[in-house]
């Protein structure tokens, strides 16, 4: 969980890395989320002021894009691909297995705070389907057994 100091540091690092114009908004939001795991709601006014935008404009952008989140994720974000190529190779069954075994719906966290489960629509790994992504790491040809191994190693690392 990010402290108020972490948040201020991330905010200032992001704002100072880019020119104060609207086109900097996505890079700034990425920098903050890369650092904190989310974009805290209470820094929206700071971002807006720096870029000469309204708070509504910044809020609109954060909530438009699936990638950005406004609440802290669990320790690891696990994305399961729900798109067609993965579906053709058991992706729906894998998604069911994920929600059942992690005991959470998509967009939710596991009870132990280890994993946030998110859907994703294509990882570009369509010849090695089905795929999941953890952080920046993509896993291909993921059977339910392999899924369990990935989850176990994440919990081990947590």
């Amino acid at each position, binding site marked *: 969980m990010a402290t108020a100091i972490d948040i201020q540091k991330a905010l200032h690092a992001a704002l100072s890395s880019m020119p104060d114009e609207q086109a900097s908004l996505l890079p700034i939001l990425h920098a903050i989320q890369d650092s904190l795991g989310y974009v805290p709601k209470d820094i929206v006014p700071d971002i807006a002021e720096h870029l000469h935008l309204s708070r509504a404009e910044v809020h609109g952008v954060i909530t*438009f*894009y699936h990638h950005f989140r406004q609440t802290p994720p669990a320790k690891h974000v696990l994305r399961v691909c729900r798109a*067609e*190529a993965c579906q*053709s190779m058991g992706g729906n069954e894998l998604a069911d297995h994920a929600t059942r075994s992690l005991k959470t719906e998509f967009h939710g966290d596991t009870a132990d705070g280890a994993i946030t489960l998110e859907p994703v629509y294509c*990882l*570009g*790994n369509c*010849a*090695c389907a089905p795929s999941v992504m953890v952080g920046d790491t993509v896993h291909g040809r993921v059977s339910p057994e392999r899924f369990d191994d990935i989850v176990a190693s994440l919990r081990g690392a947590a």
Partner: protein
Amino acid sequence: MSVRVYVPCDMSAISVGADDVARAVTAEVAARNADVKIVRNGTRGMLWLEPMVEVETPEGRVAYGPVTTADVKSLFDADFLKGGKHKLSLGLTEAIPYFAKQERLTFARVGVIDPVSIDEYRAHGGYEGLKKALAMDGAAIVAAVTESGLRGRGGAAFPAGIKWKTVHGAPGHTKYIVCNADEGDSGTFSDRMIMEGDPFTLIEGMTIAGIAVGATSGYIYVRSEYPHAERALLRAIDFARAAGYLGESIIGSGKKFELHVRRAAGAYICGEETAMLESLEGKRGIVRFKPPLPALQGLFGKPTVVNNVITLASVPVIMAKGAQFYKDFGMGRSRGTLPFQLTGNIKHGGLVEKAFGLTLRELLYDFGGGSATGRPIRAVQIGGPLGAYVPESQFDMPVDYEAFAAKGAMVGHGGMVVFDDTVDMAKMARYAMEFCAIESCGKCTPCRIGSTRGVEVMDKIIAGEARDANVTLLRDLSETMLAGSLCALGGMTPFPVMSALDHFPEDFGLTPKNISNAA
């Protein structure tokens, strides 16, 4: 001299263990004190063989795969550093029929070289196109691209040269080149393979585009789901700048070109060019009305070339070898090659670059080897989530933009998602509507509301509720979305839905007789 061993660093190869294999090879090299240089190349695109390890021998590169960490010791024991026989031997890489039968123009270097080595890039013909372009005036470059017949590879297939000509002729000093690397279609990864496996090709293509139309800066809008590609691009751009291929005076020509990478944020709609421009400007990815065309009023209101990765990455070979060379590939008005991506339930999934004109059946069976499960192939979705489902009866049609359009299908970005006979096409039709509802930007009503209503109607059809009436409603709704949507998302979602209904009525609980009544 040390032996060169290639272990791919492509994301797909890594997803099935290439990094682990590279570590195991490194450890084994150290343990045996062998004289080996490990090169992390892109993938050759034979993805069912990944991780595929290659060894350079006097006869050429010899391949082994798919390699697991458990195989590494035995590979050394089999003297694979000299091309020794092993149960995973695949012979000479370039003699593997899947690879040998291809026509690799855009992908000539992918899987061959170290992706971020500018020396290897140049040694394999890189920057030849730029050199020629620098000796020409902008109009001549535009004419060459027009003459080559290159059409937009992102999906819309608009002639690239005509777009460039518009930007070239547009008034104003500030113009932009924008590369659409928001490759969101399921079943596609060719953009990613270029960006990870040969990023200099894209950089060179964008630089040539800049010189051609008089733009001095470019943006690459790359998906947030592609962190490997983003890193490869950033590294390659740094190397290109350091070597004088980007900056104030490109290799001393006095011509300026600079490149920026911008990360997308997981919105499918930003693959639509005007939504992407909005996103680059720091706004929500809401589709713009056209006109004005982006070629006249694009990024920040300035004349802008917006092309997909493969389109821009095909420009260097066109300039290096000439428009005629490129144009000699292909059929009809579909000139050159297309990187097909065989994905989903397919035995030999991967990337096949071929001239237009081969049939789907050749791709699916001669290259693809049939389904991965060994069951009959029932349907193939071509061109992403907005592409039609093509049934077996149409597998003999040639891959050509016009031939596909005549059958209500589209080539799109060349992605093919294969389904075997266990697929439920009513569920796939429902999914198409659901995807549109999730990804709609919300600007126009047919897409925003229509997709949600479409999911509801599909639920009723699947539940068997007033089936004939609801199928009629579904067709009516699809007509409205097709005709009334602002962009391709709402306008083409009916393609997968209607093709599923027309070709597989039994999955909707209809008999062919019902369907003719409904139609």
